[in-house]
């Protein structure tokens, strides 16, 4: 996609989501916020999974840690916004440290290492009852405002995070960093040989993939008002986010967010209409997409163009 078309798509998308309060009810707003939330998660994943080509499944770990750090701060009287910031910064630092260790792994091994992080975080948070409440979970102080105001607030918060993640994506995409990450994706040995500090670059990508997840997690915790280890560190979520990004087009700027939107909306439709079969239907959709649209939704444009070009 041309840069201009990208910006246009992003702005149209954000405006579409951001104007829902003008005409829709809170449920739609909530769905819009969910779209934005997963959009931000998928866009984050894209730094490591899309640009760098490392199959990372750590998303839920960052999300969950963000939720816990944010919640614990809030429970200790730190104001919400500050708590979110602390969550973001500390999880980013954690990711950078962790990245230094597990990014030595490649391919499949990295995939498992990163998925194990999610389980490990869950187990540790579960056992560390003094701080985290263990299996009891933690209550987050509810925001005292009308439901409409709360829903709006979180819609705009999630949209803000999404927008931020997209802006950073664009910057990275056009910078040295993005170029280097693409090189690493293609051939890591060759990347090192042309002078790319692959370790530093990969850590940067991994950290970027954590930052927004942590903010989303912290904001999410404030939104629902209660978190527990099982819901905060879900393997399903971690896989789902990667699937969304692939669905839209991994490694592109707008693809992951687009994929997230498509996935969340599909899920919504199936949930409402096929209670017993929603999971299977979603499964079928994923399978069909892999078969017929392996390059993601964005590849559809190219295909259509080719098809029409071929006909002409």
């Amino acid at each position: 996609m041309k840069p201009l078309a990208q910006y246009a798509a992003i702005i149209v998308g954000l405006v579409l989501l951001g104007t829902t309060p003008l005409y829709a009810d809170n449920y739609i707003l909530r769905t819009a916020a969910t779209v934005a939330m997963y959009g931000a998660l998928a866009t984050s994943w894209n730094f490591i999974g899309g640009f760098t080509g490392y199959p990372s499944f750590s998303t839920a770990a960052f999300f969950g840690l963000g939720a816990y750090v944010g919640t614990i701060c809030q429970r200790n009287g730190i104001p919400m916004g500050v708590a979110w910031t602390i969550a973001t910064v500390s999880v980013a630092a954690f990711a950078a440290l962790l990245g230094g260790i597990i990014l030595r792994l490649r391919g499949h091994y990295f995939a498992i290492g990163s998925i194990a992080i999610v389980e490990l975080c869950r187990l540790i948070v579960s056992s560390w009852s003094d701080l985290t409440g263990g299996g009891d979970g933690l209550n987050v102080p509810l925001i005292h405002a009308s439901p409409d105001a709360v829903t709006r607030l979180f819609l705009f918060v999630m949209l803000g995070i999404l927008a931020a993640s997209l802006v950073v994506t664009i910057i990275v995409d056009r910078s040295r960093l993005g170029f280097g990450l693409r090189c690493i994706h293609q051939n890591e040995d060759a990347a090192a040989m042309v002078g790319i500090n692959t370790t530093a670059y990969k850590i940067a990508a991994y950290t970027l993939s954590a930052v927004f997840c942590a903010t989303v997690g912290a904001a999410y915790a404030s939104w629902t008002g209660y978190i527990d280890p099982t819901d905060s560190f879900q393997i399903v979520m971690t896989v789902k986010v990667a699937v969304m990004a692939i669905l839209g087009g991994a490694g592109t700027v707008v693809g992951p967010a687009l994929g997230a939107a498509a996935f969340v909306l599909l899920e919504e439709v199936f949930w409402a209409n096929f209670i017993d079969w929603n999971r299977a239907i979603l499964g079928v959709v994923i399978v069909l997409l892999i078969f017929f649209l392996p390059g993601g939704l964005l590849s559809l444009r190219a295909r259509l163009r080719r098809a029409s070009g071929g006909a002409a």
Partner: protein
Amino acid sequence: QDADTIKIGAPLALTGGLADEGKKQDIVWKMWVEKVNDAGGLQVGDKKMKVELIEYDYQSEGQRAAQLAEKLITDDKVQFLFAPFGSGHTKIVAGVGERYQVPTIACVASSESVFDQSFSHLFGTLSPNGGMTTAMVKFFKQKFPDTKTIAVLGRDDVFPKSMAEGIAKAAEDGGLKVVYKELYPVGTMDHAAALSSIKAAKPDWIYVTGYTQDLILARKQMQDLGVTAPIVTMVTGPSYKEFTEGLGPLANGVTSSSWWHYATSYKGQGVWPTTADFYSDFKAKTGGDPDYVHGSCAAAGEVIADALKRAGTLDKAKVRDAIAATDIQTFYGPIKFGPNGMNLVRELPIIQVQDEAIKVLAPADIKNADMIAMPK
């Protein structure tokens, strides 16, 4: 047309890890709604209004439960929410209900931590689980005076954990020695290590908490590893028929406590005037025996019916106040909410599996069998 129906929304776990529990809620609420509507509906002021139950599957995922609760309130415009199974998800749904000031009835949440957030729209039909521990310690000590030590193994999850901690405290207060107390994480598929340690500690009483599947496994591994004690309690194992079915003869002798049992004989108002009425209806409908989840959920319906009758209007604030003032007798027992919204403490049944059937040991007025020691 909408003005004439009362809408109750229920986010349910119909698939995923909690599906079985979710389905129990689903069955009972549907029975209740059918029964109410057959009788013309609920009395609100001078007219009868039909009840409509709107359910969504939240797939045992907390985040989705919140989302669906919001959908029920804003999209489907329900006037009441039924909270789903389990304390954690109840908290999440109650949070949404509180924000929108929609009365939420929790029928399967017994941890006080759910109710201690000063929510004004959350009410629970189960009584605090503290009622299940102290009485039990007292009862067992009286039946088996030799009981000196207890080993506790609990699942690290809201309710099972609070029961494990509760019993340990109650046991200590009651003069017992806690010789083993550990939690196991969700997803544990092997209890051999814990059970071997318990075996070495030779307790007089083994107390295990968890979901049915955990308990089946634990009981079986106890048998395999030769771990035994005169008293073996599993919470809430025997309350569920899946437990006895899954274990067969191995279930014999296992004690437990429950909020309700169909062998009780309460009388009161509502579509099922007596426990027996509910039991026979349920049996006819499903072929099985109801457990406390069924009872408590059906009673939640009665809370709404009663409150509407007294309020005489659908006005939110008035209905909430009416619910808060509930003081009724039902087939499930008395319901009267305390200041935190929870049903008041009452003496809860202690049960035991004997000959693969559930017997009630206490309280004295509903008991139908004497306690036996755990078979060797």
